[in-house]
């Protein structure tokens, strides 16, 4: 029983972290209807940023996180204005975005391989701080608990932005109906650019946590992280950030239960869940109706 409870609590801790990892991808899709296949590569860059900041300069991961949020936000806004309006003017922006961001993903991975090599690198789990928690007689490590708490804060801040600020409400209007938002006088391009910047900033936060939550990082891990993120948002509801949290929890719980009881099959979890959801409920667990939430 204690093993089961450990798997469930761990699944929730990891599930919320996975939600954070995927939420930027879903947020960008919700606002722009484009699929950023390089999302996992930005998470990977965030992770290497944390690694080098700590091991070379001795910078605390939380300080790195704040710096990366600013840098990724600016990069995201620049990247948006550089490429996305062109995509959105095309007849099939979703398909073109898949191809273009696949290319960007490959370029980032190649450059990262040149810069960082192919060997996995790790960070000491206590670098995030000491905050061990006892639940059901089981101890949960500081990196998991802090990773969970940071994820909750980041997702909570995104929620507050979307529901409590003028720009956030405008962002939800763009997500719900781009033309109607524009007709209301909202500068759709500016809102989208900021949204893309926020999506990358969320990837950066997840990236800093990645070495502590998932272990070794290496340039090609970005592809795996993109696939995991994509599975999570399809499980929840494509285009709905709230759905990502549901998707992340389902994924986290499934993964941890599989790792506990059938560990050799655990790597199949994202693919199996993806196939099952697409076959049974293609609009995701929260359904199409939730996309405008």
């Amino acid at each position, binding site marked *: 029983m204690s093993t089961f409870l450990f798997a469930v609590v761990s699944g929730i801790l990891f599930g919320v972290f996975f939600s954070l990892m995927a939420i930027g991808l879903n947020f960008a899709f919700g606002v722009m209807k484009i699929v950023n296949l390089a999302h996992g590569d930005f998470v990977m860059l965030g992770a290497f940023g944390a690694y080098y900041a700590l091991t070379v300069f001795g910078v605390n991961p939380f300080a790195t996180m704040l710096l990366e949020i600013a840098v990724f936000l600016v990069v995201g806004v620049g990247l948006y204005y550089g490429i996305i309006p062109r995509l959105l003017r095309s007849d099939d922006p979703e398909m073109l975005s898949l191809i273009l961001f696949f290319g960007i993903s490959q370029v980032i991975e190649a450059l990262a391989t040149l810069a960082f090599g192919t060997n996995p690198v790790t960070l000491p789990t206590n670098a995030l701080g000491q905050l061990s928690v006892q639940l059901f007689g089981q101890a949960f490590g500081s990196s998991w608990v802090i990773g969970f708490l940071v994820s909750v804060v980041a997702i909570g801040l995104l929620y507050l932005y979307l529901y409590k600020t*003028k720009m956030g409400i405008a962002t939800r*209007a763009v997500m719900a109906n781009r033309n109607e938002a524009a007709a209301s006088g909202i500068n759709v391009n500016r809102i989208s650019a900021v949204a893309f910047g926020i999506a990358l900033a969320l990837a950066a936060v997840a990236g800093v946590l990645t070495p502590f939550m998932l272990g070794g990082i290496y340039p090609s891990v970005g592809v795996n992280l993109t696939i995991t993120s994509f599975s999570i948002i399809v499980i929840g509801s494509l285009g709905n950030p709230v759905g990502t949290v549901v998707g992340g929890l389902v994924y986290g719980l499934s993964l941890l239960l599989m790792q506990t009881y059938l560990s050799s099959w655990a790597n199949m979890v994202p693919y199996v869940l993806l196939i099952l959801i697409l076959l049974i409920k293609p609009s995701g667990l929260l359904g199409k109706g939730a996309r405008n939430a």
Partner: protein
Amino acid sequence: MADSDQQGQFHQEVSLLDVSGIETGYDDLQILWNVGINVRRGERVIVLGANGAGKTTLLKALVGLLPAWKGAIHLNGEAVQGMRIDRRISRGVSYLSEVGVVAGLTIEENLRIGGYHLASGAVRSQMAVMYDFFPDLRARRREAAASLSGGQRKMLAVAKALMSRPQLVIMDEPSAGLSPLFVSEVISMVNRFHGEGISFLVAEQNVKFLEIADRVYVLDAGRMIFSGTVEELHKNDALERAYFGVYG
């Protein structure tokens, strides 16, 4: 020549919206040919036309949702044809599309985005004004716009369009999907806010809107085929038959 220049200058000074020679369409498909329209301060102008005449396309070109291939659009004498839509809206124009509201947002959020260009204090005071005009909306302000009936949505759409304190409200088929009772209500709303000094440009196929028209344009197959008063429209036999034949 000097007189003509002076007349043109005077014409622009009194015009809120002055459109000439507009041509546009979708991809390679041209919808509008050499369309001109003029709305003066305090006027209620109706653009009458059947389905597919190009009314929505014209309004989209006026507010900037669709680029004009040719022609000129002046708002308060300022050329705006190359201007972004949000900048046109911030210059005193409000557009009420056929959809009119963002269904996924609450009623209050719809009003907030209607007043997107206003300062937060002005949004609050204008929202209070709208809730006074439409008390039903106040009672349901936290509910999603999707939960409203067709008539209530139109009410919200009008309130949203008026949130920005516009000089000119451009309405696309406000009667679409409404029962005759609600159509009358929308017409009385237009009258009510016209009394507050707001000008209206309404694209419609419902001739009931002619009751409140100061001037009428008739758009047919992408070309403006008539411009004048309602009385002049009634004197045109072909148009009289086309638009009022069912009553004759």
